[in-house]
């Protein structure tokens, strides 16, 4: 692109007259920093672009969770005479939920490794196990919610319960969306094999599922363990 000229002759004069290159340190022709996308080596490949885009989307999702965490922290003691966390929470159930999600995250990682190796059978088997464990988690959580409601601990009862149901429910909703996505991905792997797009989506799904587990770590610690302990 070294063939561009200005619109007027004045420009030439201004180049010569411009004495103040103040505030500009010359960069020199130093060696470009290796690494596509940062430094000078030009656009990154599409896998990195997709992965990175999804990564920052996930970070924004985590910020959304943090707003619900903040609301929970502020409203934690606003029980309005209703049941407290200490009275409601059943830690054994939470421990099983945690186990399901952790194993699910682990198996999801295995499915990702299988997909990088382009092994369709193992990818599908691991994805299926991931989904089943996720579904088990979701079942336990819904069962817990129904149990709470039966004791009169509905989100309408107090601000504490509103915050609790919203925070935990938001995570549950993410798991549900993840399951829908997972089903779609299994169908795509079966129908299309490991095309470039499918590979990208599996990478993103893997990130999503691990991120959900990270959020769950914060959740069971702040909500359940600290709620039951204090």
């Amino acid at each position, binding site marked *: 692109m070294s063939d561009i000229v200005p619109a007027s002759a004045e420009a030439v004069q201004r180049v010569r007259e411009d004495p103040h290159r103040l505030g500009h340190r010359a960069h020199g022709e130093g060696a470009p920093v*290796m*690494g*596509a*996308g*940062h430094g000078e*080596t030009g656009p*990154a*490949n*599409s*896998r*990195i672009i*997709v*992965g*990175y885009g*999804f*990564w*920052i989307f996930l*970070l*924004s999702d*985590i*910020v959304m969770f*943090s*707003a619900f965490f*903040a*609301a929970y*922290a*502020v409203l934690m003691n606003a029980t309005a005479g209703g049941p407290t966390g200490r009275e409601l929470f059943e*830690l054994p159930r939470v*421990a099983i939920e*945690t*186990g399901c999600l*952790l*194993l699910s995250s*682990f198996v999801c*990682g*295995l499915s*990702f*490794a*299988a997909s*990088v*190796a382009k092994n369709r059978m193992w990818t599908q088997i691991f994805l299926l196990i991931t989904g089943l464990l996720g579904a088990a988690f979701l079942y336990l959580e819904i069962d817990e919610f129904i149990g709470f409601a039966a004791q009169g601990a509905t989100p309408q009862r107090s601000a504490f319960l509103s915050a609790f149901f919203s925070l935990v429910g938001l995570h549950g909703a993410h798991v549900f969306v993840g399951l829908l996505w997972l089903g779609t991905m299994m169908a795509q792997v079966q129908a299309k094999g490991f095309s*470039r797009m499918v*590979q*990208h989506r599996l*990478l993103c799904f*893997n*990130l999503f599922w*691990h991120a959900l*587990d*990270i959020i769950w*770590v*914060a959740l*069971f*610690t*702040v909500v359940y*363990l*600290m709620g*039951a*302990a*204090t």
Partner: protein
Amino acid sequence: MSELDYDPHDLGHDHAPGDEPAESAGHWVMNYSIGLALATILTVGSFILPALGLVWGPSLPVALIVLAIAQMGVHLVFFLHITTGPDNTNNVLALAFGVMMVGLLVIGSIWIMANMHHYMAPMPPEAMTHMQAPAAAPTVPPAF
């Protein structure tokens, strides 16, 4: 954009988050297994810590938060393959920015709301009567 097609063996010097290119399947499984083991230990630790009574009661939340942060680190390193290497700079910077926002929002909200709670605590009705201004005749505009 087809010149940018993905070739798993030529990722150059940059990674997509979650990727760990050019490794054998055995390495992947190994990595995930270490992560699972560490995460399990930390999770079990979190759950039994309150029951064990090893930690002084009031400091229990701090201990739990430390364990949780440790576990998040394990997930990031072993499941999401986030490292400190130059190939991960952008991923780590984005993560740091996200963590900063989460910290500002959660800590800021708690601080502000606790402070307001402290200064605006409900007071008994007799204290309130002292604060009321003497009742003046309300000026209602004729239009109403």
